[in-house]
C-alpha cells in the first residue's frame, strides 16, 4: 500500500499536531479576510480598505510596499500615510520573513493550494517548466512598466488585488482571472503562480533576505529520509541545504528567502526535525558536532 504523505506524522503526533501550522495558517488567512469583511458585511469597522492599503482601528496604516514602489517609479510622491503604512509592513515582513505574506495572508494562496491539491488527486504530471527566476524578471518588468507607462500598470491585472478587492468591494467578471490562475496551477505547470511568476512573492523574497524568523531543521540528525517535507513544501529547493548540509557545515537554518514560513514541513515530519527559530541558530551548531549527528541518525534509523 502506498504510504500517504504525512501519515507517519499523524500516527506519531496525532492528526491535530500533524496539521497544527496548516490550521494556524488557514485560521490566519480567514481572520485577515474576516477583519476586512467585518466592516462591509457586519458594520464593525476594525479594518478599512484592502491589502493595497488599510487602516486598522482608525490609527494603524498598512500599505503594500511593492504597490507603493511602483507608484514611486511611476513618478508620484505619495503622502506620509502611505509611506508610514509601507514602512510598517516592510518592517513586519522583514522580521517575520517576507514570504510569510504569501503563506499566511495572501488570498491567492488558497486558490493555488486548492489547485495543487486537485493536481495531486488527478495525478497531473509536472507540465511546463518555468524557471523560478522568472518571478524576478516579472518583478523587474512591472517596475519598468510603471516607469514607462507612468502608472501602476501591474495593478490592472494583479490577481491578488483583483481577488482580495473583489471579495471586499465586488469582483465583477474578475473571477475569470482567478479561474485562470487556478487552471494555470492545475494543468499548465506545478506551483506556477506563487512559486514562479508572482512578482509580489519575488518582492517579499527580496525583503526576506536577512529576516530573523526562519524555519530551522533543529533535529536534522533525526531525519529518516521519508521526504514528506519535500513533498508538501511549495519551494522544496529550500530544504536540502538546511536538512542535509551538516557534513558541509551548512544549516540547520533554512536561509533561502524563497521559504514561505508556511510550517508544513514542521507538521508533516514525524521526527520533529523542523521548528520555527531564528536565522542565528546556525552558530549554535558548530561543524565539529557533525560526526555526532551522523551517529545519532544511525540510532534513529535502527529505532524505526
Amino acid at each position, binding site marked *: 500500500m502506498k504510504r500517504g504523505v504525512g501519515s507517519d506524522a499523524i500516527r506519531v503526533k496525532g492528526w491535530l499536531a500533524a496539521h497544527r501550522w496548516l490550521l494556524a495558517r488557514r485560521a490566519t488567512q480567514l481572520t485577515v479576510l474576516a477583519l476586512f469583511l467585518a466592516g462591509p458585511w457586519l458594520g464593525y469597522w476594525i479594518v478599512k480598505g484592502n491589502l493595497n*492599503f488599510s487602516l486598522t482601528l482608525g490609527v494603524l496604516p498598512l*500599505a503594500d510596499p511593492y504597490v507603493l514602489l511602483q*507608484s514611486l517609479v511611476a513618478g508620484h510622491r505619495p503622502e506620509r500615510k502611505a509611506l508610514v*503604512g509601507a514602512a510598517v509592513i516592510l518592517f513586519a515582513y522583514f522580521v517575520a520573513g517576507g514570504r510569510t505574506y504569501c503563506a499566511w495572508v495572501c488570498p491567492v494562496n488558497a486558490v493555488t493550494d486548492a489547485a495543487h491539491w486537485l493536481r495531486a488527486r488527478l495525478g497531473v504530471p509536472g507540465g511546463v517548466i518555468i524557471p523560478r527566476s522568472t518571478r524576478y524578471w*516579472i518583478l523587474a*518588468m512591472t517596475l519598468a512598466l510603471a516607469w*514607462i507607462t507612468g502608472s*501602476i500598470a501591474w495593478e490592472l491585472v494583479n490577481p491578488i488585488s483583483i481577488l482580495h478587492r473583489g471579495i471586499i468591494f465586488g469582483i465583477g467578471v474578475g473571477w475569470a482571472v482567478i479561474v485562470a490562475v487556478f487552471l494555470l496551477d492545475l494543468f499548465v505547470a506545478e506551483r506556477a503562480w506563487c512559486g514562479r511568476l508572482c512578482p509580489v512573492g519575488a518582492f517579499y523574497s527580496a525583503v526576506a533576505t536577512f529576516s530573523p524568523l526562519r524555519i530551522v531543521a533543529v533535529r536534522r540528525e533525526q531525519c529518516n529520509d521519508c521526504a514528506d517535507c519535500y513533498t508538501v513544501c511549495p519551494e522544496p529547493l529550500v530544504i536540502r541545504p538546511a536538512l542535509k548540509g551538516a557534513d558541509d557545515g551548512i544549516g540547520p537554518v533554512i536561509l533561502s528567502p524563497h521559504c514561505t514560513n508556511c510550517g508544513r514541513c514542521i507538521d508533516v515530519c514525524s521526527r520533529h526535525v523542523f521548528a520555527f527559530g531564528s536565522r542565528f541558530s546556525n552558530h549554535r551548531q558548530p561543524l565539529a558536532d557533525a560526526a555526532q549527528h551522523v551517529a545519532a541518525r544511525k540510532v534513529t534509523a535502527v529505532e524505526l
Partner: protein
Amino acid sequence: MVGNGKTRAATRRQFLLDAARNAGGVTLVGVGLAFHAGQARALPPEAIRPPGARAEPGFLAACLRCGMCVRDCPYQILNLAKLGQTIATGTPYFVARTGPCEMCVDIPCVKACPSGALDPDLTDINRARMGLAVLADHETCLNFLGLRCEVCYRACPLSDKAITLEQQQNPRSSAYATFIPTVHSDQCTGCGKCEHACVLETAAIRVLPRHLTKGELGEHYRLGWEEQKRAGKPLIEGVTGLPDRMPEATR
C-alpha cells in the same frame, strides 16, 4: 573549486542564455501589458473621479486602489471599478446621474486617501473641479422650452454662482420670458447634482471632463464690461467720436 576557463565560459554562456530566454518571454508579456495600460487611460466621460483627483495619467500613478475614499464617503456614491469595465481596474469613480457628489464640507474622501491621488491640498470643496456641467441639450431643457423647471439651478450647491438663471426673451411669444440655466465655469465644481436632478428621461445638463467642453479665448481678447468693472470707471472718458463715413451722395 575554481573551474577552468572553458567551463566558466560555458557556465556564463548558459546563464546568459537562460536570462535571455526569461527576459524574452517576460518582455512579450510586458509589451502586452504596456499596451493594455495605455488603453486603460481612456477614462469614459461618464465616470467622474472623486474631488481633488489628479489629472488621469497622474491619478493612475498615485491611486493605490485601496478604496479608502469609497469607504469614507458618507453618501456611498463612490465605486471601485471592476474588471470588465472601461475604467482602470480598482480605481474610484462616480456617475453623476446615479449619485452625484454631495459636496461634504470636510471632504472625507480626500482625507481618507493615503497616497495623495486625491490632492490633500483641496480643503475647500467649492474649489473641487471634478468636471464641468454643460447644458448640453437646449432642445429638451424645459426652461429653454419656456417652462420654469429650474430644478438644476435649485439643486446646485452653488446656486446663483455656479448656475444662474439668465432671463431671455421667449422666441415664441413676447408675452413671456425664458430663464436659461447658465453654468459658470469659474464656480462649477462638477459635482453632478444638476445632472442628477434633471427631470428629463435623459438629462439635458451633463457633467463632462473640462477638456471636452471648455473653450479658450485668444489671449488678445478683452471683455470691455469686465475691464470697466475692474477699472471702476469707463475706460474712455466721454463719448468717443468715430469718423462718419457716409456715401458720396449724402455728403
